């Protein structure tokens, strides 16, 4: 349908959309009620996954189902999506910030010759134009941007936008547009799985625990992981801790690591250097525990405890356990 707001589906690689899609669809529906369409490039979509997209509010699902889309390659995805966009003329193309979407939509925008607003945290219509707001300069400022022409291509920071409420029984019409599968230049060799911590992924978690220099060494992260298991939180680290070799880089929160925006952030022994704040300052509730009352993180914390983290963490784990057992 011309003028639709496309939501590019990020899935779990097992045929179901990730729950961040409720946020993308929710925001698109707020801006363009009744004009929300999900566009899904996958090797296999499940029935349950398609149903989920309808319940979240997609009126229509454009399903591009082909083995060539997995594993993801921007050259293949951009070619297929651009062909479809030429036929459908969407007004906007939204996607959540994930490893593949951030590359794919940038490539797609270039192919369509339109602008891109990456990592957006707010949208508003100004007359018939979309204006996006996005953090810049290590999150020290916000930039409002607009497009010269549509489709307006944007990625949305996870955990920022209000998710759509699922409406049981609401369904989307599912269409499978014909597709000339584009050829791929790059060849898949292998996937190397990370050793799973059993905890949520950093950028997707609703609660994130972060350990800084105050953790004193790699062996002490077990106490944070134990707390993480109790409250279902991801465990990350500051640059100081990563550069000291205590945690692998994939756990780094901050400017040269991951940007997170959880509902609850708990920092232990994190001083709050600007480059760390750049990666977490849009968290909704910030808790800081540090021995140093002058630590800059207290300036942006909603709740602070000035104390030794090694006394606070076990106590906190115990109290949360009590609370959640109730």
């Amino acid at each position, binding site marked *: 349908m011309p003028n639709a707001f496309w939501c590019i589906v990020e899935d779990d690689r097992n045929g179901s959309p990730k729950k961040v899609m409720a946020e993308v669809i929710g925001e698109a529906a707020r801006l363009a009620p009744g004009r929300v369409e999900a566009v899904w490039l996958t090797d296999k979509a499940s029935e349950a996954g398609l149903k989920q997209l309808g319940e979240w509010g997609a009126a229509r699902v454009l399903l591009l189902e082909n083995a060539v889309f997995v594993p993801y390659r921007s050259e293949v995805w951009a070619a297929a999506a651009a062909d479809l966009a030429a036929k459908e003329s969407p007004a906007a193309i939204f996607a959540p910030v994930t490893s593949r979407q951030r590359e794919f939509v940038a490539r797609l925008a270039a192919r369509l010759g339109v602008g891109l607003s990456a990592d957006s945290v707010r949208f508003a219509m100004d007359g018939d134009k979309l204006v996006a707001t996005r953090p810049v300069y290590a999150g020290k*400022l916000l*930039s409002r941007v607009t497009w010269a022409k549509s489709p307006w291509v944007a990625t949305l920071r996870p955990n920022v936008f209000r998710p759509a409420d699922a409406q049981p029984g609401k369904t989307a019409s599912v269409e499978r547009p014909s597709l000339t599968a584009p050829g791929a230049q790059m060849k898949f060799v292998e996937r190397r799985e990370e050793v799973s911590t059993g905890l949520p992924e950093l950028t997707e978690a609703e609660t994130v625990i972060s350990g800084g220099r105050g953790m004193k060494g790699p062996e002490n992260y077990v106490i944070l992981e134990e707390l993480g298991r109790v409250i279902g939180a991801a465990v990350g680290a500051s640059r100081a801790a990563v550069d000291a070799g205590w945690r692998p880089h994939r756990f780094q929160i901050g400017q040269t690591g991951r940007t997170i925006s959880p509902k609850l952030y708990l920092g232990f022994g994190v001083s709050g250097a600007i480059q760390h704040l750049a990666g977490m300052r849009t968290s*909704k509730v910030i808790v800081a525990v540090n021995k140093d009352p002058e630590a800059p993180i207290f300036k942006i914390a909603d*709740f*602070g405890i000035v104390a030794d983290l090694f006394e606070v963490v076990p106590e906190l784990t115990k109290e949360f356990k009590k609370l959640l057992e109730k």
Partner: protein
Amino acid sequence: MKILVTIKQVPDTATQVKIAADGKTIDTTGITWIVSPYDEFAVEEALRIKEKRGQGEVVAVSLGPDRVKEALRSSLAMGCDRAIHLNDAAWSAADTLATAKALAAVIKQEAPQLVLCGRQAIDDDMGAVTAQLAELLGWPCAYWIMEAAIDADGKTVRAARQVEGGLEVFDLPLPAVLAAQKGLNEPRYPTLKGIMGAKKKEIKDVKAADLGIASEPSQLSIVGLEALPPRPAGRIIQGDVPTAVKELVRALREDAKAI
């Protein structure tokens, strides 16, 4: 093998940034400028590839005003062989696509086998130019790479990209574009000899007309910059540890409804 590295000069993270009078740009007075950290990983990787192969050329390219020469000079000090400075007022409000078009035009002239970029510049954090370059050139692309190895024939690069839950390894036929993630390598510090030598290396100024690029408005434009809304004042919870922790848990549950 010729390798081209794109670099961007950005304000140092610790620098205070203030909104300029036009409301759309930052006031550059007193700003300390650095090479965007991810670009240093790209430069380092290019130098390592050249050193490993025992031959080749590494060309640093940057788009921006006169001050950008300083950033190019520091890349030359690290070991790049020469530099190209895309220096034209026509690009002063360039968005990622306009930047990518200018870079793609240089790449077509230079015809490198590999282009290395940083994962994103830490000023506007778009992270888009690498993929847009790949699209404009019709080349394969891999984002957030943690490893890169060129095969003996110089025909393909094997790159490992960081994704949620692991690494995905691909063979990309050259020419290709890669975006460097932190962890790819440890960038070297320029030596005194490198710094002295950099003064003699060429930095070529290039204008839009030299690339045959017609001036066109940016597809994405900045309406305005705004300061962050201040966070409400926080609360330091007093008392001994068990008391403070009990109060924190209560406040998170009942006041903030965060757990």
